[in-house]
């Protein structure tokens, strides 16, 4: 029978932050020494074997590989939605779902690519309603509408993106970025906990 790992002495961060955080797995990751070619194929980048999170997901390496290749194309591909806005969508979904770890990573990326921390700081400190102007407001509202249950995203949301000047290829990227963090958040939140580094 398996075993759950707990960290009674860990002080979880109690607020959203752009600081670097660590992540502690509740299920044992695979041993780095035990990884085979099949696992490395799932990790995609060899350096990901240093991450406890990815070595935990490597328990199903094929599914991890498909997840990682989806992630990379949605966030790193050229053209379409600017990277800063893809990352803002990721941070907004994470803020709403409550993934402090994911929000920290993608808030940092969004600031790095936009060179502006105003809206990201408002998002982290005050929540998704605090970003309500211009393109960033439209990105965050889309992220929220796609994340909330039950399903409520509709033609009015597309019309709002049209009014804000988003082209169809940008809308496709935005939908995928917001949807993807509904995948990522659920793994990070449910398989371990963040730690202040």
């Amino acid at each position, binding site marked *: 029978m398996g075993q759950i*790992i707990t960290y009674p002495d860990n002080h979880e961060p109690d607020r959203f932050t752009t600081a670097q955080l660590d992540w502690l797995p509740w299920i044992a990751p695979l041993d780095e020494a035990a990884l085979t070619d099949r696992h490395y194929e799932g990790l995609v980048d060899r350096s990901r074997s240093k991450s406890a999170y990815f070595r935990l997901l490597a328990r199903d390496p094929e599914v991890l590989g498909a997840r990682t290749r989806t992630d990379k194309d949605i966030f790193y*591909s050229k053209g379409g939605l600017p990277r800063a806005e893809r990352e803002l969508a990721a941070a907004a979904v994470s803020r709403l779902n409550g993934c402090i770890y994911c929000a920290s990573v993608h808030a940092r990326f969004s600031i790095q690519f936009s060179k502006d921390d105003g809206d990201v700081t408002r998002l982290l400190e005050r929540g998704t309603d605090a970003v309500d102007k211009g393109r960033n407001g439209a990105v965050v509202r889309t992220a929220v509408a796609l994340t909330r249950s039950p399903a409520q995203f509709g033609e009015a949301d*597309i019309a709002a993106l049209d009014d804000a000047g988003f082209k169809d290829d940008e*809308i*496709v*990227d935005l939908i995928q970025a917001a949807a993807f963090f509904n995948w990522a958040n659920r793994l990070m939140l449910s398989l371990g906990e963040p730690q202040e580094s």
Partner: protein
Amino acid sequence: MSNRTLIETLARIPEGSAIAGAYAQRSDARAQAELSYRLLLSPQDEGPVGLTERYAVAAFVAALYGEPATRDHYAGLLRGAAPDLADGIAAEARSAAASGPWGHFPAGPLSVEDQPGTGWEATPERVAQYGARLAAALAHTHLLVLHPRDSSPEALAALLTAGWDEDGIVVLSQLVAFVSFQIRVVAGFSALVAARAKTPA
């Protein structure tokens, strides 16, 4: 474009349309989402999670979110394998669907944002109806779908107690999380398709 993906079918993206072209630009995201679907819902080797369990969990995720095309797709898969279970899951989702995401933050300044909600427990009645393993999986599914920030090591321990192993928990988690992604892509693309059917961009 050959080999339409499930997302394209469910979102009714017209073949050859501008939207199809924009999605095809993200060829890895498109193909790898389809691969995830096949790996998780029609695995060559079931491994630690049985096929009917996979269908039941996916059907519950989709029905709780409620995007109609994806909900009907997964309900159909489950109905083909286990009709009684499909009725049971549909009824559970009708009574358990709620506004999400809700849940608690770590105690501190975010506590003012805590939102209460009604959890879904593996009660003795549900264990009798679905078996301990599936009842525990459905409870975990409800947690991840509607109040994922309430996740805890205790929630994973409950799965182990009900007969799940560590590899199985990873598959279950990926399944719930993947369908949560896929159904939102379908919801988003469906809205885009509907909008462009009226006023072509």
